[in-house]
């Protein structure tokens, strides 16, 4: 049987976090009522002209620098022509022969730690189209409805080289890509709302051959999971077809997440005669080297560098560093807590388990607005460290901190949760517990060491968890050996 090698290239469209659209002043707020966020420009009315949003250019440069791309000395917008009713001018202002940046790379790590470098072919800017709502499904609808709110939103298109070798790698690439964009603050990375959209080019070839197989474009990969599932399906579909002696048709296929398959979109070749030509309503751009340097100087530490630093500076296990740096807000949260005096490993544990139980890891805003501030988490860990509260109590306190936003100190004082570390007080309880549990005592005497644990548990229960566990254990042991 032939062994195939998979060749994948990803094309990612990211909606930029500008305040206004790419070529007009309309706001970019998500979720407005249909056709309330348009103006003559983004509605493509007769006589209107586009004007480039400087911040969109800045965001693209920022991203290009993060991917180590070459920023082209001159770049230009071009018109891409095709008819679709969600595209007001029936052409899209995009970039063609002179994109903003080319030739970069994104370094990723697979789940088993294998490092991979994925080349980035080009990065350019363009405008988004509006939204179509079909009365029924696309196939059965007698009419479709158009909302132009999204038309003209700034999109950054990044095309990877065909360097990706498996669906799993594709998913890892997309995750790393998203993390970089979010770190840079240029995109919110929200795939559900369509801020990040992914298409893939997939082909397979017999292992060892250099020539690329016929590629198929897969559209509508709107989550990390779908990227992997769709590509797994498609790779298998192509391998099966080739094994049966069939040929792969160059085409565009749509991923149907509900049915778990890709299906062909009817589309003849002539539809792809885009008739690009330089956009005559815009001037070419020759970006000032000083401006680019300024943007370079303002780049934040990127996920990969930060992950390495977390390992070396805080002696965190690679897994922890990886988890904590997936989101910029989370990494910043962690560092702020450590800066406030908490131990790195404990902070890492508490951030990953307790904080992420309350807040989704990719919800940057929610992490920044967390009711438990990094300083308050550090305060909680300090109380635990000092023995004022036990680990168990600390978890309860954390829950209360989430609800109230109060400091751990305030909650512990208010609720009298201070750990009992007074040997005399605990000894009385130990005596009482031992007196009431002769069976456990007998078991211990008969060589069942575990029975001591049950007694310690009783002591903890009797103190509502406030007894210092180590002290309770020590006193139980002492008492039992004396008996």
């Amino acid at each position, binding site marked *: 049987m032939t062994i195939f090698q998979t060749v994948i290239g990803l094309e990612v469209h990211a909606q930029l976090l*500008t*305040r*206004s659209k790419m070529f*007009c*002043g*309309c*706001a*970019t707020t998500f979720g407005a*009522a*249909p*056709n*309330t*966020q*348009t*103006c*003559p420009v983004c*509605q493509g009315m007769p006589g209107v002209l586009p*004007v*480039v*949003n*400087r*911040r*969109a*250019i800045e965001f693209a440069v920022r991203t290009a620098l993060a991917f180590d791309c070459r920023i082209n000395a001159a770049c230009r917008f071009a018109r891409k*022509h095709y*008819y679709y*009713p969600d595209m007001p001018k029936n052409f899209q202002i995009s970039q063609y022969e002179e994109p903003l940046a080319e030739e970069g790379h994104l370094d990723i790590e697979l789940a088993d730690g294998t490092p991979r470098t994925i080349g980035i072919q080009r990065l350019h800017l363009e405008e988004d189209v509006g939204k*179509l*709502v*079909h009365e029924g499904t*696309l196939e059965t*609808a*007698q*009419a*479709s*409805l*158009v*909302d*132009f709110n999204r038309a003209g939103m700034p999109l950054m298109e990044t095309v990877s080289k065909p360097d990706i070798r498996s669906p799993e790698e594709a998913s890892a690439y997309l995750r790393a890509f998203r993390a970089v964009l979010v770190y840079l603050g240029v995109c919110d990375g929200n795939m559900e709302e369509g801020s990040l959209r992914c298409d893939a080019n997939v082909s397979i070839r017999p292992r060892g051959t250099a020539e690329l197989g016929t590629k198929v474009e897969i559209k509508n990969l709107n989550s990390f999971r779908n990227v992997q599932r769709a590509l797994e399906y498609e790779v298998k579909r192509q391998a099966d077809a080739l094994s049966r002696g069939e040929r792969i048709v160059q085409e565009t296929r749509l991923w149907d997440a509900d049915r778990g398959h890709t299906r062909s*979109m*009817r*589309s*003849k070749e*002539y*539809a792809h*005669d885009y*008739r690009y030509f*330089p956009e*005559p309503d*815009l*001037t*070419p*751009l*020759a*970006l*000032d080297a000083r401006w680019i340097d300024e943007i370079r100087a303002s780049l934040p530490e990127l996920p990969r560098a930060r992950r390495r630093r977390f390992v070396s500076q805080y002696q965190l296990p690679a897994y922890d560093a990886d988890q904590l740096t997936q989101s910029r807000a989370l990494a910043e949260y962690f560092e702020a807590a450590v800066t406030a005096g908490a131990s790195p490993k404990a902070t890492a544990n508490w951030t990953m388990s307790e904080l992420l139980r309350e807040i989704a890891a990719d919800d940057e805003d929610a992490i920044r607005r967390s009711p438990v501030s990094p300083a308050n988490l550090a305060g909680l860990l300090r109380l635990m460290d000092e023995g004022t509260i036990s680990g168990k109590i600390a978890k309860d306190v954390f829950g209360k901190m989430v609800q109230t936003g109060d400091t751990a100190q305030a909650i512990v004082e208010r609720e009298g949760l201070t750990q009992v570390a007074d040997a005399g007080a605990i000894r009385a309880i130990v005596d009482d517990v031992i007196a009431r549990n002769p069976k456990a005592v007998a078991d211990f005497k008969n060589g069942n060491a575990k029975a001591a644990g049950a007694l310690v548990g009783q002591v903890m229960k009797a103190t509502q968890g406030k007894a210092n566990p180590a002290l309770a254990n020590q006193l139980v042991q002492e008492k039992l050996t004396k008996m």
Partner: protein
Amino acid sequence: MITRQDVEHVARLARLHLSDDEKERMRVQLDAILAYIDKLTALDIEGVEPTSHAVPLLNVMRDDEPAPSMPQGDALANAPDRAGEFFRVPRIIED
């Protein structure tokens, strides 16, 4: 030489419905115009940069400042067909 197929292909790209008579007239006229335009091949353009604007400008950009959008009523006022808050178009069949 422009063929009838060329005319049909271009008409499809341009979303223009042409009658048979129009196609033939278009073919003859485009052919004549393109024959005239062929005189450009007499010039040596080796190494000449294209001019896309007579007055060269660079880097004209605007600040990222939101401006008010149109009220929905204005946005939809010219619609040939609408359904509530949307523009309405006949069913879409991919070509």
